[in-house]
């Protein structure tokens, strides 16, 4: 038996979707390795969360009541003690921002090998996991030669588990050492507010690194004006301060679901895709035919955006600015 302990996640009183993905990923791993799937629900309204994650395929749910919000010292201690108590071979955590804040500590605390951002499992005697490298251009297989490991799984890679489960929910009495809690959450801040809500837009023209310079922005603005679209972007554009945070599409920005999404000079990194894959039709303008954006694009133009965009502006009778 190789049991799996998968850890769920919540924030500000709500279970996060990734928790239901952890159920699917955990079941997947437990099936590969021939074991049970245990879930950990830590802090906040644990009984309500436990009820929500009690889906088909879950064998047992363990709740740890301590505080309201995520704290990495509490999570690390609770997960380590629970994994020890259950003798779980595999500890599965989400590769979310909070996952990255405690999973390495759990691996270190339990002396487990750590593999992060995993997208697939397979077992042929030993566990093999698949992860990406070089910005998604290649996949690698990593063999885990110990029969124990700490693993984080990529968000939105596994489906959300469905079907009512009948796992027993039990309270785990973790012994949280308060002297080990040396960071304090003092609040939360919404940063993507403002006058524009790109998540409501039906037609988005979105730009990425391919635009190269801030001086080239007027070209895209002219296209936006000529087509009456809404302007959005991938992360680097906001990081550079060329557009405000409320224009950012992706994991750390907004999730958008327009009828049409035109990705201009966007490679399609996984964090970006997380925010726009729900678009009805995706059009990519990118010179690199291997760019991951083409994995989900419906239409593509593999040509230089600085040639295509002016032509497009003219198609709609707009004025092409000098850039």
């Amino acid at each position, binding site marked *: 038996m190789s049991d799996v302990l998968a850890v769920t996640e919540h924030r500000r009183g709500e279970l996060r979707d990734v928790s239901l993905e952890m159920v699917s990923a955990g079941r997947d791993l437990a099936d590969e390795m021939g074991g049970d799937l245990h879930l950990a629900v830590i802090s906040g309204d644990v009984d309500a969360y436990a009820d929500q994650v009690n889906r088909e395929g879950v064998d047992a749910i363990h709740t740890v009541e301590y505080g309201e919000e995520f704290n990495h010292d509490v999570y690390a201690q609770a997960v380590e003690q629970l994994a020890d108590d259950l003798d779980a071979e595999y500890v599965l955590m989400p590769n979310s921002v909070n996952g*990255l804040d405690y999973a390495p500590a759990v691996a270190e605390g339990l002396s487990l090998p750590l593999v992060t951002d995993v997208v697939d499992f397979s077992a042929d005697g030993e566990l093999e996991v698949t992860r990406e490298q070089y910005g998604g251009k290649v996949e690698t297989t990593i063999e885990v030669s110990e029969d124990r490991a700490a693993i984080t799984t990529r968000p939105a890679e596994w489906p959300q588990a469905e079907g009512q489960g009948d796992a027993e929910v039990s309270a785990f009495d973790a012994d949280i050492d308060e002297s080990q809690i040396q960071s304090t959450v*003092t609040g939360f801040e919404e940063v993507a507010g403002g006058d524009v809500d790109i998540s409501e837009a039906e037609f988005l023209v979105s730009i990425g690194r391919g635009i190269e310079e801030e001086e080239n922005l007027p070209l895209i603005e002219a296209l936006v004006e000529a087509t009456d679209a809404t302007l959005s972007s991938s*992360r680097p554009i906001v990081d550079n301060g060329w557009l405000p945070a409320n224009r950012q599409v992706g994991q750390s920005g907004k999730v958008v679901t327009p009828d049409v999404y035109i990705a201009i000079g966007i490679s399609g990194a996984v964090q970006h895709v997380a925010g726009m894959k729900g678009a009805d039709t995706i059009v990519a303008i990118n010179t690199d035919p291997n760019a991951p954006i083409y994995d989900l694009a419906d239409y593509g133009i593999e040509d230089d955006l600085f040639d295509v965009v002016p032509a497009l502006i003219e198609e709609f009778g707009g004025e092409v600015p000098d850039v």
Partner: protein
Amino acid sequence: MSMKILVTVTEVAEVEDEFEVAGDDIAEQYLEYDLNEWDDYAIEEAVQISEENDDVEVVTATIGPERSEETIRMALAKGADRAVRVWDDAIESADYLDTDSKADLLAAVVEEEDPDLVLSGVQSADEANGATGVTLAEKIGFQWAAVVNDLDLDIEGGVASVHRELEGGVEELTDVESPAVLTIQSGINEPRYASLRGIRQAQQKPLDVKTIDDVGLDESVVDSPLAQTSMYEPESEGDATIWSGGPEEEAEQLAEFLRDKGVVDA
């Protein structure tokens, strides 16, 4: 009050658009090496702290071959004071340098340097494990915060007030006790370009090269229970219709599509 900030700096490989996998990695001729983007932000954050306060030393620590000195000099040119590079044959020939090994090597450097604050990039652009910083913190007994996109340091009080960039446009405000490891997210600042003067000065700044033995560890530090058994190009899941025929024709097809779809009236 003097202070020392250690910044972990890594050289990353960028892959050209067209490439081939040879054995278990991308063939060397398709790789270009550069300073890891996230580390660039970490360096900038450290240098800004050193400029805003008296008596702050910024030291970079890198695990990397001789080639990576170009990257390290870049960090020195941007304002770091000196650098430590750890490398030797055992690291070079390691089958799979995992997070644990990297953090062990960096921990040995940290113990020698005894910094008050460690800044590290959230992740490396090539391997993207995103775990070295927090693993390091746990090994050296420092507090930590991952994915920091705002930092306000109270040096006297020994507290770092940070924003952690969560998903969906939400930031978590957290106070972390020093000494701490903070993993720095892109966008936290505007990394400077190295000035010509900075680049000249960087040539004179100390860059110490240390072996595993020099940092007080033995070769078993590079052993790993993990092994990379294959690397391959994922099969494209895409079935995009590609419009071709040159920019004008392509724009025309896209325009026609947008009109048909009813999202553009013009």
